[in-house]
């Protein structure tokens, strides 16, 4: 690392005294956000808008969890979508084959994801940069091809059909659209809050240190492999949550959920919103979904349009939207302090 870069990481030091205060602030923001989202059905009867928010919840959980790897730890995973697909499929299969209550299936799916992610992660996190990216991609394709070929169990290329039963639990009826909407919002907000806590915890700062200089972190007595594996599994859990929201929403699971393009979109969402801020991926999710919906309405060749937009961001701007906002604020603050 050059001295210039070393100087820039100065801001990484967590201010211990403010930590508790910041946690209260985060919880407060989360409560307000949930109240706003939950009261939305009172003002509008638009099913399309509620659907959009549900899809944003699914993809937002997925994309933000990817940012834990890409932005915070510097692990460029190109196969993170496998856990999205895994979550959707395990949840759907458990509900269809076993008929257990939804919370049980939810917890069981998280457990399955944790085990699978621990095995895959143990192999992958040893690898560096581009090897890590492609080996995670290969695992994603392995899971995708398993889903396609194991047709008797997963439904093959037709996907899980016949719908997922949504029995009532604790007075919540997920087959009711508004109930499903509120449950998705709650999962999103809880997931984001949990990930925020991870990112702001001492463990989160350990991850940033590994990203900036893994060798130095290792010298300081940090077990880099274990920290990377831990965050890999944690991120997988939240991606799996996103997959479950998606499975509930479409009442099924399709091989596309486990296809590599989901991972590609996740990376792009992070790029679009920016990886330097916690909420960047969330902004990116909303932008991408709106963009996708608009483009598919006008042309069937949305790959070209999307590709050009990606090029514009990658070659033209070289950073995401919220990165700009963050820089603008930092600039103003510096100017205000007379620097």
């Amino acid at each position, binding site marked *: 690392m050059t001295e210039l870069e070393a100087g820039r990481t100065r801001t990484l030091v967590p201010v211990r005294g403010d930590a508790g205060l910041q946690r209260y602030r985060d919880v407060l923001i989360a409560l307000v956000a949930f109240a706003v989202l939950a009261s939305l059905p009172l003002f509008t009867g638009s099913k399309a808008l509620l659907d959009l928010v549900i899809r944003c919840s699914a993809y937002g959980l997925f994309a933000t969890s990817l940012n834990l790897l*890409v932005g915070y730890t510097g692990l460029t995973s190109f196969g993170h979508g496998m856990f999205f697909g895994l979550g959707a499929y395990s949840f759907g299969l458990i509900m269809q084959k076993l008929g257990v209550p939804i919370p049980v299936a939810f917890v069981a799916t998280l457990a399955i994801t944790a085990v699978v992610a621990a095995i895959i992660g143990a192999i992958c996190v040893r690898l560096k940069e581009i090897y890590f990216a492609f080996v995670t991609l290969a695992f994603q394709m392995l899971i995708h091809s398993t889903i396609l070929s*194991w047709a008797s169990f997963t439904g093959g290329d037709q996907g899980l059909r016949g719908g997922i039963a949504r029995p009532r639990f604790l007075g919540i009826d997920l087959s009711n659209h508004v109930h499903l909407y509120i449950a998705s919002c709650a999962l999103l907000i809880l997931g984001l809050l949990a990930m925020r806590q991870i990112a702001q915890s001492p463990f989160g700062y350990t991850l940033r240190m590994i990203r900036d200089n893994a060798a130095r972190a290792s010298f300081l007595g940090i077990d880099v492999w274990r920290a990377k594996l831990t965050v890999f599994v944690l991120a997988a859990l939240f991606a799996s949550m996103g997959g479950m929201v998606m499975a509930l929403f479409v009442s099924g699971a399709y091989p596309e959920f486990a296809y*590599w393009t989901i991972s590609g979109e996740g990376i792009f969402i992070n790029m679009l919103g920016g990886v330097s801020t916690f909420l960047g991926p969330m902004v990116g999710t909303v932008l991408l979904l709106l963009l996708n919906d608009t483009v598919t309405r006008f042309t069937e060749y949305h790959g070209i349009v999307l590709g050009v937009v990606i090029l514009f961001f990658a070659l033209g701007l070289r950073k995401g939207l919220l990165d700009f906002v963050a820089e603008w604020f930092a600039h103003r603050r510096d100017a205000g302090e007379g620097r």
Partner: protein
Amino acid sequence: MDLDALAGCLSSSACLVTQTTSGLIIGMLLFLVAVGLTLIFGVLKIVNFSHGAFYMFGAYFAMTAYQLTGSFALAMFAGAAGTAVLGLIFERVFMSRVYGADVLMQLLVCYAFVLIFDDVVRLIWGPEFKSMGMPAAFQVMPLFIAGGVVPPYYLLLIGVALVAAIVLGIGLSRSRIGKVIRAAAHNPGMVSALGINTGLIYGGVFALGGMLAGLAGALAAPVRSLTPGMGFSVLIESFIVTVIGGMGSIVGALVGALLLGLIRSFGSLGFPLFTEGLMYLFMVIVLVSKPTGLFGKEAA
């Protein structure tokens, strides 16, 4: 799982010959794609995630040239030359802007082009499956070797790929240009200081890699069906090849590609549902036991 079928095949020479040749052509096509990937990585230090698109374009160019002229040789030329030009433009205009940038950025630029190229093919040639058809010159009786059926086209395909491998190997190690390329891979700053245009070398290497992938696509066009997105599975497989063989190693690419081809052809007998899974499994085993690949050098 169908181990009886696999054992039955291994004990019959006819089946052994048929499966081995089909494994060899899969392997040789993979080699041509993978060697371009490994060459580009070795010199430019980037992974061309859109490499599969060159394979796809090679196949489509060859099909169009064949339909227009009816000449098989011209079709091969069109596939190889067209993708070489495409590679040169792609590298000079777009990829040259992200050298030294984050891996994420390089992947994104390539990802954008995977999306764009697939749609361009859909726009020009249509979304449906296409077929070039076997050229008349090769519509002859298949050869019988030890009771196994071997179509003559397979022999041509293996021959062309072998010639390409040998020319490439000797060219890189013996010729002046080869030495300059290897020097540029090692220390581009010094090469540039000696008055050699490294931008030209980078563009040339990318064009060469694109050309090899295009040639593979053109060779595959008569025996495979053409569809937008056909390049992606080839990309994944050729990446597995380079990981198994070791990034940047040409011998590694050849050995890895042949191993993978044989795993595919024999695996489809023994594990018909899990053929792709076998490849990934093999890669994981190699990676865990030797992270740099079979012929890879220790990472600096």
